[in-house]
């Protein structure tokens, strides 16, 4: 083998070894990256949504009286359920239903009591005319409101109030905020008989 050929092979070998070495160094870093990225994202999200990480449900309930959802524990007692595939409810089900339902209602209370979360521009929040959602009468919808030109559902009235007394932008009917506010208002009227069309 000529010296030039040897030199060429040596150079190629070095390059290959260097490449392998670099590759080895890179690999652990790449294996680490997904976990780090996930942790990084979580930290950012927590910063943007500080109260998600905190006791926001309990804090909101401390501020405002909120009706609890129905008690579903009787469902655990009935005899047939034990042999059903779908009807075999557990305590965890009862807890889950309660907890998740309550969270939406409590979120609704937060929005209801805050001009900023409602998107209002004049510092007015729903509780200024409707403390504890008094005087909202969700049980009377649907009803024809001539001043709205159509039969209103509860969410139509909510949007009318947001646009006029609160001077904000109407919420999309299935937006998270609208669903939460509607849930809160309905919750506060627990136990009142439905009476649609009542003015």
């Amino acid at each position, binding site marked *: 083998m000529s010296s030039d050929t040897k030199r060429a092979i040596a150079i190629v070998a070095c390059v290959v070894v260097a490449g392998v070495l670099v590759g080895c160094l890179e690999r652990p870093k790449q294996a680490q990256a997904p976990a780090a990225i996930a942790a990084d994202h979580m930290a950012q999200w927590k910063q943007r949504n500080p109260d998600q990480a905190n006791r926001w449900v309990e804090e909101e309930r*401390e*501020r*405002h*009286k909120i009706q609890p959802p129905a008690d579903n524990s009787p469902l655990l007692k009935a005899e047939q359920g034990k042999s059903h595939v779908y009807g075999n409810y557990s305590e965890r089900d009862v807890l889950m239903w309660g907890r998740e339902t309550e969270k939406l209602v409590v979120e609704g209370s937060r929005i209801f*009591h805050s001009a900023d979360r409602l998107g209002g521009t*004049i*510092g*007015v929040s729903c*509780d*200024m*005319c*409707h*403390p*504890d959602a*008094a*005087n909202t*009468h969700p049980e009377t919808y649907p009803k024809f409101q001539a*001043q709205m030109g159509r039969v209103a559902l509860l969410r139509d009235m909510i949007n*009318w*109030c947001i646009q*006029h*007394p609160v001077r904000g932008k109407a919420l999309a009917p299935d937006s998270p905020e609208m669903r939460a506010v509607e849930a809160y208002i309905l919750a506060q009227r627990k136990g009142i008989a439905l009476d649609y069309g009542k*003015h």
Partner: protein
Amino acid sequence: MRAHSQSLDRRSFLKRSAAALGAAAFVPVRVAQSAPDAKDAPAFRFAYISDSHLYAKDLNDRFARALMRAVDDVNNLDPQPDFVFYGGDLAQLGQAHELELGAQILKNLKAPLKIMVGEHDWYLDMGAKWRELYGEPTYSFDHKGVHFVVLMSVVEADFWTKRGLTPMQRMLTVAGLDNGVQSSFTVGAEQRAWLQKDLEKLPNNAPLIVFSHSPLYKLYKNWNFWTDDADEVQAILKRFERVVVIHGHTHQILTNRIGNIHFHGLLSTAWPWPYAPQGMPELTIQMSRPDPFNPNDGCGDGEVLVHADGLVDKVYSLWNRNPITVAKGYTASGGKECVPPKPNRPSY
């Protein structure tokens, strides 16, 4: 009316024109609702404006405009009242610029101003700006033989220090009517002692009117339509033959009688509150549920006609509605005489 045919004399002209106006379809209605007859005419009157909850003008024009409207109403009263009483909650969040805006607007009143503090004015800076503008919140004065007392009835026990709240967080907590973190209103031992002393020299038959922001009784705790030490305050007032308490905070027609004390609420210029789900005094004939499509409905201002014995006719001048008077005869008779009109849209 232009000149018409000479063959018409005045009587036939009236008859014709009555026909022209379709007077047949007409039923005479009393204009004013005042009940008192000549021999029991009031000795004097004062006007009131209350609960304006001002933000800066360029944040919320509606509230500022409403207070201006009330000032305009009072300035156009004929006869002019002896003074104008402001029932508290001039500002919404107790901020200096809100209080100053309110003070500026109220300066346009022709009659002299007597003012009382509300919780919305106080809990941002614990009354620093209020004192600068209006002096001590608790005071008394005499006018035409009647002794007037102005209390600061919205004293709250400290709930903010242990929670580490900032002044604005404290104010926002108090500003929420249904916010359960705040404490109940009280008059407090210090003021009760002051009150006892202030009333010392008055005979039992002295005409006496007490102003407080919150009602000096226990209506509904959740909304602080409530004074925790109401019993103690009422005990101080018990020896008098009759006492009138006039309060703000409730933004509605509200009437009560507890023993010798006749309670009357004030209207707000900013927005009406719903009636409390429990604890409503029997004597109250509610105002019709306000219509959301009229931003001024359920709001207004009014007058208090004071009789020589200290009892009052309370006039609620509701915007876009006929005024409603709760006459002295109504509370004096326990609700049997001079009954105000019933609402057509009840609260529910």
